[in-house]
């Protein structure tokens, strides 16, 4: 039986260095990539869509992506859609913080307690989206990658 390529989800964080919520996006992405779903996820730096080559711009065409944005400018979601492909799902930290009733996120260099809670909440949301994207697709899409029997 042929070994099929493992399907993964791409995580694109805005990384917005100007605001604390940007730090949350970065740390949440790292938590998912390194600890929570290391086998199921990959990432690319957002600016590579512009600064990189065609391979980088094709990223979201190879992988369904979950974008993580710090604020409602949604740079990661818009950037991914504009330069690669429409993200499969997106998370906005400022909205999630309000939804979860967390306090004000502060400290772009060193997050406060609300910021650390926001990292956990964001990572958990991303994990649920990743699992949702992979589970229903596994049998169907993997079957679609099998070599055809010919015309």
């Amino acid at each position, binding site marked *: 039986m042929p070994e099929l390529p493992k399907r993964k989800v791409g995580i694109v964080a805005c990384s917005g260095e100007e605001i604390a919520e940007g730090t949350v996006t970065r740390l949440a992405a790292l938590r998912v990539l390194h600890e929570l779903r290391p086998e199921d996820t990959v990432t690319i730096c*957002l*600016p590579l869509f512009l600064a990189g080559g065609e391979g980088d711009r094709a990223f979201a065409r190879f992988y369904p992506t979950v974008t993580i944005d710090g604020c409602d400018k949604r740079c990661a979601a818009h950037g991914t859609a504009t330069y690669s492909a429409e993200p499969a799902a997106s998370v906005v930290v400022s909205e999630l913080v309000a939804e979860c009733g967390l306090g004000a996120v502060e400290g772009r260099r060193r997050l406060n307690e609300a910021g650390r809670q926001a990292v956990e909440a964001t990572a958990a949301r991303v994990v649920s989206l990743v699992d949702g994207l992979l589970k229903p697709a596994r049998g169907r899409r993997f079957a679609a990658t099998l070599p055809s029997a010919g015309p």
Partner: protein
Amino acid sequence: MTKPVSSETVVIPCSGIGKPFGSVSREAAYEVVDALRPAGTRLVALSRLVLGDDEAREAVAGHPVVTIDGCKLACAAKMAKASGARTVRELAVIDTFRRHPKLKPEGIAELNEAGQQLARVLAEEVAAIVDEHAGRKGTDA
């Protein structure tokens, strides 16, 4: 008519989250704008330039810019130029590391002590460039 360039310097670190050098670039940028030269600098997020955000592009076009890149792809430098920056000093973490090879950065979410020290050294280099720009502006005036 050319746009006047303010003495405030824009610092743009890379957005890399895959390697410690990206973390060093950010830590150095924060050290400059938060601690070393808070009055004469501002930070602009690379993601806003990717988006084409008007305010971010104006800031980059109207101020001296220092970019700090974590890898050879040099996203920050490329994006600054593509966004209309005219006066750009391009720094790379690897260059500072080559001058200080004992300061090997490790860790991404949490830099080790050597990485923190490397960031401080790099921040001093950026601060010197900021002072150079400010001095030039003062001389021009």
